[in-house]
C-alpha cells in the first residue's frame, strides 16, 4: 500500500475532510500561539493521541509521527544545544564543544512544535480518503490543480520510500554496502539521492501527460464518484474554529505590539 490513508469505520473517518483540516490547522495555531514550551507536547498527548485511538489508527499514527520527527529532532538537538547563540548556562563539555541549557530548551520547543504540526496533519491524512479530500477541496472552490498537488504531495512519502527501496536493492545487488555502522549507512545515502531525485523528475512529464489524457484540464465542472456529506453542524463548527483561530492570532499580534 502506497498511501497513508487507513480505511476504518470511525467517527473521525466520517467527518468532512475540511472539518478535519480546519481542526488540524486550529490545533497547529494553538500550539504555536501558546508561549509555553511543553504546550504542543501536551496537545499531542491529550488531544491527538486519544483522537488517533478513537479513529483506530493509533499505531500507524505514532509510528509515522516518530519516523518523521526523528531526523528533525536529532539535527535540532545537535545543532541548537551546541551552537545556540544566546546560550550561557553550560550543562556539559565535550572538548571544545559545550552543551548549553538555552539551546536544549530551544531544541525541545522546536521539536514538540514539529511533532504537533506533523501529527495534526498526519491524523487528517490517515483518516481521510485522498479522493474524498481532493473532491471536497474542489467542491469548495479550490482550483483542481492545487487540490491535486496538495493531495498527491501529501501522499508522496510512501511512494518515494518504495522507489528508494528499489534503488537501494539495485545498488546492493551491485555490491554497495548499505548496512552496518552509522557512518557506513550515511555514506550509502549519497548514491541514493541522485537516482531518486532524477528518476522522480523524469517521470513528471509522463505523469503530467497521463493526467491530461484523463481530462484533467477539461473546462467542464467536475463531478465526484463519492458522496461527501457536509452537515450544518460541521459547517458551524468549522466557522467557529476559524473565528477562534483568527481571535488567537489577533490576540498574539496585539501582545507582540504592546
Amino acid at each position, binding site marked *: *500500500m*502506497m*498511501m497513508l*490513508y487507513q*480505511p476504518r469505520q470511525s467517527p473521525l473517518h466520517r467527518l468532512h475532510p475540511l472539518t478535519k483540516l480546519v481542526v488540524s490547522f486550529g490545533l497547529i495555531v494553538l500550539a504555536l500561539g501558546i508561549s509555553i514550551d511543553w504546550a504542543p507536547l501536551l496537545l499531542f498527548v491529550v488531544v491527538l493521541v486519544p483522537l488517533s485511538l478513537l479513529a483506530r489508527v493509533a499505531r500507524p499514527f505514532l509510528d509515522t509521527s516518530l519516523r518523521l520527527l526523528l531526523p528533525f529532532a536529532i539535527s535540532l538537538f545537535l545543532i541548537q544545544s551546541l551552537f545556540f547563540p544566546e546560550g550561557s548556562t553550560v550543562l556539559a563539555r565535550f572538548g571544545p564543544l559545550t552543551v548549553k541549557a538555552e539551546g536544549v530548551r530551544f531544541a525541545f520547543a522546536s521539536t514538540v512544535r514539529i511533532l504537533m504540526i506533523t501529527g495534526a496533519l498526519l491524523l487528517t491524512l490517515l483518516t481521510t*480518503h*485522498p*479522493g474524498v479530500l*481532493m*473532491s471536497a477541496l474542489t467542491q469548495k472552490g479550490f482550483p*483542481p490543480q492545487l487540490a*491535486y498537488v496538495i*493531495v*498527491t504531495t501529501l*501522499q*508522496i512519502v510512501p*511512494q518515494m520510500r518504495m522507489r528508494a527501496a528499489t534503488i537501494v536493492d539495485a545498488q546492493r545487488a551491485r555490491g554497495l554496502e548499505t548496512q552496518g555502522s552509522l557512518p557506513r549507512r550515511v555514506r550509502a545515502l549519497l548514491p541514493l539521492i541522485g537516482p531518486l531525485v532524477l528518476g522522480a523528475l523524469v*517521470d513528471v512529464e*509522463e*505523469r*503530467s*501527460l*497521463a*493526467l*491530461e*489524457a*484523463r*481530462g*484533467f*484540464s*477539461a*473546462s*467542464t*465542472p*467536475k*463531478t*465526484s*464518484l463519492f*458522496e461527501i456529506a457536509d452537515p450544518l453542524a460541521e459547517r458551524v463548527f468549522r466557522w467557529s474554529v476559524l473565528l477562534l483561530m483568527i481571535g488567537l492570532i489577533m490576540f498574539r499580534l496585539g501582545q507582540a505590539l504592546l
Partner: protein
Amino acid sequence: MIRLQGVRYTYPVSSAPALAGIDLDIAEGSFCAVIGPNGAGKSTLCYTIGGFVPHYFRGDLEGEIVVAGRNTIEHPLGELVKHCGLLFSNPLNQISGARFTVREEIGFGLENLGVPRVEMHARIERVLDLLGIDDLAERSPFGLSGGQQQRVALASILVMGPQVLLLDEPTAQLDPLGSREVFAAIRALSQTGMTVVLVEHKPELIAAFADRVIVIDAGRVVLDGVPQTILASSELQRIGVATARWTEAARLADAHGLWSRRDPLPVTLDQAAEGFRVAQNTPS
C-alpha cells in the same frame, strides 16, 4: 476517422523536425500498427493525433489534423480526450495517486469530464467487465502487477468512451506475462470495432492484431500496407526495425534455396511452420 495532411512538427528545443511531412488516412474501425526505429517519430505521431501537439507540446506545427471529425488544433485538449484516448508505456506513471482503489482510479477521468455519478458507476462496471478485471476493482492500483496496472490504465482511458485509441508501446515495460495480459485486453478491444493505433516493436503481436502497418523513419512514412507485406519486407532491416525470428529464418532458408518461392515469407509462427513443411516436401 483520422486524417493528417502535410503534418510537420518540430519540438521547441529541437532544430530537426520530429514529423517531416505526414499524410495519413486511417479508416474507422481500423487496427493500425506503427513501427519504426527509435527516434523515428512514432510517439510524436501519437501525441499529434491525440492533440497533445500543439496543446501540451508547443513547438512549430504545420498541416491539418482531423480526428473523429474534430480539427485537433482548433479544439481544446480537454475536449479532444473524450474522443481520442492515449495509453503510455509506463503503467505506474498513469496512476493518478489521488485515488485509493482500482474502481475509483478508473472513475478519475469521468470525474474530470463531469459525468454524473450514476452514469460513472455504470461505465466503470462495463469497462471492468470488458477487460476482465472485475476482481481487481476494490484493490489498490499500487499493489498490482505491471500487467494488471496497465490493464487498469487502459480501462481508465476506455471508460471515457473514446472513438480512437492510441497505444504507445503498451507492453514495453512489462514482463512476458504482463505483455500477454495486456494483449489479451487489446484482443478484446479489437473485436469491438474501435479505431486503434498501436505503436509496438513486437512483430508477432502486430501480425496477430493489425490490419494495417505503417513504418515511420526520420518523421516520414516510408512503408504502408497490410501486415503480410510490410512485416516480411527486407526494407525493415535496412532502417533498423526488427522482424520476427521465423521471418528471418525463412529469409535465410530462401537465400539457400530451401524455401518455396511461390510462398511469401511468413509473418506468423503458423505460416512459418506451414511454409517449412511445404519446403520440406517440395523436391529441389
